[in-house]
């Protein structure tokens, strides 16, 4: 049997941190317009929201960092939210990305 690595109990977090992996499906990826739509929508949440992509943690409320990350159509990303409204933040972020970030 593959043994499970026992972890030292961590310091208790206040929030459990939620995340979801998904693929970007809008043709422009996180370029100017779609990224703006995204940032404007998630900025209202208090949680920290991060997009993990290509080994980097990108601040999802920073338009400039999102553009620099160059997340394209077909990119596999993980959205992570941590904070008091993390569930709602993650749900909206995921829903937006899945719906194509307002792209026409």
């Amino acid at each position: 049997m593959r043994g499970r690595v026992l972890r030292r109990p961590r310091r208790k977090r206040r929030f459990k941190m939620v995340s979801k992996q998904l693929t970007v499906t809008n043709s422009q990826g996180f370029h100017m317009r779609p990224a703006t739509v995204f940032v404007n929508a998630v900025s209202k949440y208090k949680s920290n929201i991060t997009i993990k992509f290509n080994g980097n943690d990108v601040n999802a409320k920073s338009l400039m960092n999102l553009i620099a990350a160059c997340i394209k159509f077909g990119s596999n990303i993980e959205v992570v939210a941590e904070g008091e409204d993390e569930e709602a933040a993650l749900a909206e972020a995921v829903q937006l990305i899945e719906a194509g970030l307002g792209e026409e």
Partner: protein
Amino acid sequence: MLKGIPVSDGIGIGTVRIIKNKEVKFDDRVIPENEIESELGRFHSAVDVFCERTKIMAEEMEQSVNPKEAEIIKGHIQMISDPFMIGQIEDQIKNGTCAETAAENTLNQFIEMFSAVDDELTQQRATDVSDIKKRLLRILLGIEEIDLGSLPPGTIIVTKDLTPSMTTEIKKENINGIITEKGGITSHSAILSRALEIPAVLSVPEITKILKDGDSVIIDGKEGDVISEPTEADKQKYEKARVDFLKEKEYLNTFIGKDTMTEDGYHKEVFCNIGTPKDAVTAVQKDGEGIGLFRTEFLFMDRKAAPTEEDQFNAYKKVAETLGGRTVIIRTLDIGGDKDIPYMEQSREDNPFLGYRAVRYCLGDKELYKTQLRAILRASAFGKIWVMVPMVTNVYEMRQVRGIVERIKTKLDKEGIPYDKNIKVGAMIETPAASLISDILAKECDFFSIGTNDLIQYTMCADRGNADVAYLYKPYYPAVLRSLKTIIENGKKEGISVGMCGEGARDPMLIPLLLAFGLDDFSVTPTSVLSTRSCISKWTLEEAREVANKAMSLPTYMEVEEYLKGIIRK
């Protein structure tokens, strides 16, 4: 004559005005502790002024250019309002750096980041950030911005790079052309000059040094030519070209929003060929009456695993909705051994174009095909979608595809998922085999769409990429014309709709023949919609039939081509 990248069609004749972006210089200062609050205040009010001015610019632009381009400028507000970036600048000011240096450092960092990415669109954003930086520094330093609004009529703007903030001030009636040292077909300069309908040639090396203020110059926005110090003869030649261009454009614009009709009132349709959901927007803008070919390969390329049903469904639905009830013909995956797709099991083939590709591959990888067909069927609830099967050579292939479609329908019914129960399934006719059996194929298809590019290649056995045999790759060979006639007539005999989605559909030499044979819809690149509609409107069926009879009687392609050149109507 100098050469550049042509990005906005038209001829511009005028007087050079070099626009230099004055270097913004300032002295770095250390801010003493007790002034940090006021320095932060100075920075924040500069950002406020920036946003306010930009908002006004965007509003003006919405009026003078169009809402879409105004969005680029609005994007600058979004960029500068990035809380992360503002925080970085504030941190530096709090450590005693002056606002100018702090802003320059941080913005430069993003310019570097954007430029380093191997992606054209991201690199272009570096131009935006650099524009933002210059404007913000000017506001901090109290330097007036460049005023392009006061340029006199007949000006040709010559500059290193046209920034979005510069273009908002341009009065298009005064500017006859734009020449830059930087930028490509998708740059801001290009998009904006096209939106403003100003002829533009970009990426002309050293042009700001070669030309001087007051020089006379001509630019050709179609060919990418820049003629400095033109002779009288040049001026006359290009003046004529300019007037002709404007006349033709004005004339073609009269076809916007009109039905496509032959001169004697037979109704036809001009559709568009597209490759992504974004192209669908262009197709609608260019007045396409539907989508005659939606290539789905983009969904399958550049990725590690096949797209999910949901990915595909969203893309198809988006196009269907963009077209708002007008026909969208989706071509199922048309791919084979000549393209490398890691997750598809393809082996190297000696003859990929005669190999395991298109419908052959799809019928061999049924899971992949079912996923695509199910996504298409689901999307059919949101518009008028037809399914087109590529590279059909026999009736059995159509039966197999239709069988799969029927089984998916049954499943969708069970699951209670909506779809268009009468969805049309048709064949792309692009092989000699399909052409030869088009009479029996027509009985098992809801429509035909002729792909001329492959049909010519397969009929003439000539690879158009091979220069030695390229002379054989022409639609004017009697073999190709006979094939076209057979396909269209057999389709019409069975009462199904017959379209064409290859280059041939917009060829003014072929259009009368296609009309004579009975073609229903002509699917072209979005920019050719109006010229195709115009050409169709010039023919009565009787005249077209006369031309077709004559063309079909000629034995060599030279004679056919020569004859058809003489009958062109635009």
